[in-house]
């Protein structure tokens, strides 16, 4: 393996040498030995081969008309074998505009893999663990806005998907998870690799299906994609028996769907919208609380328009990060447990909260009786069950955020910013206090250590705040949300509801495939990274250009922080070892870089960005850095813990 001449000089960290190992030639993605640098970010396996050309031609055709494209029949593909259930699965996926499937084969799923090769426009990415497939489909969906698809076999393949399905459920991600099951005559007989997977996924999916008849497949897939993507999105699981996959299928794509029990209410009630406008007109200290629903509904422009017209500052939840350009003067920042102090203070002193597409999660409200005690609440959500679930509200509006805002904006009066001058001045004073330290809460500058907040903010700068940034879970996730600086909608991907460690790398893999036009970074801690580290090889084999920023503090950082602050320093099981990351990168054939000092950060980031393909940067951050402020569990937004801060001595 030769070194690449365009590779930047790797950084040498203390005690270890940074290595750029280049990519292994054995994975077959290099056009010629070692020279794959000329064309950046190529997603095709075996680039340059006839097979890759076939795949990209198929995908180009698909993307031209994703919804109603003419799917070639088997005869048009030059095949004489009968059309079976597995063919119907592939056709249905294409018909629904799915161009990528993240999957892992297994005994009863093999009939599907037997025909998959006949559908070159359907790209299959072989993951290393089904959890990775589910997270990748999740990341794909979040980055692209399309339905993500993952699949696994019966039994363990199916149960391995469950974590990722649950993650998608809690974060309202459109996903279709496909599993195979044993032949229907063996269902319930405890056959090999049989588990009641529809029973398991029932409470963590929006809907699920057990399909025993090949002729049900086109209808079920059409329903599943519709349910997954319509209204409040969510995962739908389809379990197919092996005999359904193998039987001859004569059913065609349905012309219309018959789902009498599924009619999401998209337009908000006119009278309620009018009431909301009255509330806004009456409020002296209004604040918008934007959630994931704003991004899902593609209501970013409407949000900004409302904020500007009525001069209302916009706070956001964790999944609402990137709903508003953070440099916008009315963008207030992130609310909640680790949100900004000035945002929490604004919420607590507000007299009106306009909650858009969010669900008053306990990480947002804290102890509900103390939440925003003076505020009346207008709550817009597409899911009626979210209204009044956690917090009683004055003006509930059930509907799609975009449509509701479009109806609301004309009813809201233009507000002169001057009339809110005192309010804004107060917020600005709080903000100045909240942001008074350059690396808030870290303190790592004291002895020249590297602080994580510095690293993520430099990644944000280096990528022009345009890259897709995928966080793992824990302190790294909080630092990403606080300090990266998000400007582009859907550029922030994070496991909010389920808080799934190990989410970062596989989700970034999916995000990079879903938005190949955007640079993708996974920012992970050393704990979460080790949970799904096997997907590194998927990145290599499928040549998926994810840059991994490893924030290595040799700790389960958030666990350690809680143990320090809540459990009186009883640090049980929060110190963990990792491998030699550079050797690991080398073993996988991934260029690896190390930064241990603040001055090495920018060079390491630039080095990783210059790699064509996946890259790993090990940032050796301070071991005991906490995320502040922090709202202790069971307390309210006014009870923030903050670091006792000393001004740096010159």
């Amino acid at each position, binding site marked *: 393996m030769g070194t690449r001449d365009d590779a930047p000089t790797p950084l040498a960290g203390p005690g270890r040498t940074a290595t750029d190992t280049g990519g292994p030639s054995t994975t077959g993605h290099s056009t010629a030995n070692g020279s794959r640098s000329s064309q950046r970010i190529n997603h095709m396996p075996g680039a340059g081969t006839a097979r890759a050309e076939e795949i990209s031609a198929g995908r180009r055709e698909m993307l031209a008309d994703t919804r109603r494209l003419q799917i070639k029949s088997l005869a048009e593909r030059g095949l004489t074998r009968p059309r079976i259930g597995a063919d119907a699965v592939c056709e249905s996926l294409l018909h629904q505009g799915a161009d990528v499937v993240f999957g892992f084969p297994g005994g009863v799923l093999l009939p599907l893999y037997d025909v998959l090769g006949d559908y070159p426009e359907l790209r299959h990415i072989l993951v290393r663990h089904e959890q990775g497939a589910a997270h990748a489909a999740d990341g794909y969906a979040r980055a692209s806005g399309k339905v993500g698809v993952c699949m696994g076999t019966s039994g363990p393949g199916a149960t391995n998907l469950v974590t990722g399905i649950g993650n998608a459920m809690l974060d309202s991600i459109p996903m279709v998870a496909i599993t195979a099951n044993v032949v229907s005559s063996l269902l319930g007989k405890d056959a090999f690799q049989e588990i009641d997977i529809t029973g398991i996924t029932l*409470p963590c999916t929006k809907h699920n299906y057990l399909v025993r008849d090949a002729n049900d497949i086109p209808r079920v897939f059409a329903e599943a994609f519709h349910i997954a993507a319509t209204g409040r999105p969510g995962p739908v699981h389809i379990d197919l028996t092996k005999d359904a996959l193998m039987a001859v299928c004569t059913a065609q794509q349905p012309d219309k769907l018959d789902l009498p029990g599924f009619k999401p209410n998209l337009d908000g009630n006119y009278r309620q919208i009018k009431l909301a406008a009255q509330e806004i007109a009456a409020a002296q200290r209004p604040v918008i609380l934007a959630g994931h629903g704003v991004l899902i509904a593609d209501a970013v422009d409407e949000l900004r328009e409302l904020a500007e017209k009525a001069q209302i500052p916009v706070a956001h939840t964790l999944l609402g990060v990137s709903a508003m350009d953070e440099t916008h003067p009315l963008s207030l920042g992130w609310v909640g447990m680790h949100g900004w102090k000035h945002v929490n203070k604004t919420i607590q002193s507000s007299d009106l909260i306009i909650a858009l597409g969010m669900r008053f999660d306990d990480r947002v409200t804290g102890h509900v009786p103390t939440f925003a005690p003076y505020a*009346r609440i207008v709550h817009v959500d597409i899911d009626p069950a979210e209204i009044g679930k956690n917090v009683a509200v004055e003006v509930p509006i059930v509907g799609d955020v975009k449509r509701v805002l479009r109806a609301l904006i004309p009813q809201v009066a233009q507000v002169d910013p001057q009339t809110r001058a005192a309010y804004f001045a107060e917020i600005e004073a709080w903000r100045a206090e909240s942001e008074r330290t350059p690396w808030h809460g870290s303190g790592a500058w004291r002895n020249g250590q590297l602080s994580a907040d510095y690293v993520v903010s430099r990644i944000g700068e280096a990528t022009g705040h345009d890259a897709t940034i995928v966080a793992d879970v824990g302190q790294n996730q909080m630092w990403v949300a606080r300090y990266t600086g998000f400007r582009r909608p859907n550029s922030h991907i994070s496991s909010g509801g389920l808080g799934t460690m190990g989410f970062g790398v596989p989700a970034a893999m999916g995000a990079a495939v879903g938005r190949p036009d955007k640079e993708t970074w996974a920012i992970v801690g050393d704990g979460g990274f080790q949970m799904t580290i096997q997907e590194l090889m998927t990145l290599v084999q499928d040549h998926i250009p994810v840059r991994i920023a490893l924030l290595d503090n040799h700790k389960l950082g958030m666990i350690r922080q809680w143990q320090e602050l809540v459990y009186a320093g009883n640090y049980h099981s929060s110190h963990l070892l990792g491998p030699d990351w550079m050797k690991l990168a080398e073993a996988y054939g991934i260029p690896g870089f190390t930064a241990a000092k603040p001055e090495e950060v920018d060079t390491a980031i630039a080095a990783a960005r210059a790699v064509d393909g996946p890259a790993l940067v090990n940032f050796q951050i301070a071991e005991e850095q906490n995320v502040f402020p922090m709202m202790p569990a069971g307390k309210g937004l006014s009870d923030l813990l903050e670091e006792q801060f000393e001004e740096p001595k010159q």
Partner: protein
Amino acid sequence: MTPTGSNPAQGGPAHTAPPARPLPGKGEQHRHVLVTIVLNRPGVLNRVASLMRARNFNIETLAVSHTDQPEVSRMTITLRGDDVAVEQAAKQLYRLIDVLKVQDVTSDPIVEHEIALIKVRADDRNRGEVLTIAEMYKARVVDLAAESLIVEATGTESEVDALIALLRGFGIKELVRSGTVVMSRGAGSIEEAVKR
């Protein structure tokens, strides 16, 4: 529900404790009857039961049967909770794709019935007494043996409760109750909206 008290940020005194925001679902609990119209599909009972369990609602009775439309089933669920909590349960049920309609009929004009079979210890000495009580509750005796008899009672939940309380003194050997079923009074139909 409207917060009162003075906001320090708007000139109110800073030392007064802010008003506490009410927690949904902490109000006075009483019995509710939910009629749920569902698609007659495999697993739908499991979906409803699983949802109620997962969302921490405690089902008191549940009666499921077909309706006049073969593809539609009807569930009558009774549960205890405050109005907000039960409304939340109904809204959660609506999230199920197979659920067509949920109606809280607690305060509607309805006919409410439940059937109970009660096997009571009764011999020559006290059989007459048991029969008198059963008669007063318009219950029928459907089986008679030397030392026991089966009373079939219909009525509202509280009527059946009252009869059981009276019979308990004789010794109840076995008891089964169907759970409440209800129907709205008058020409209106709960199923009207879901006629297919």
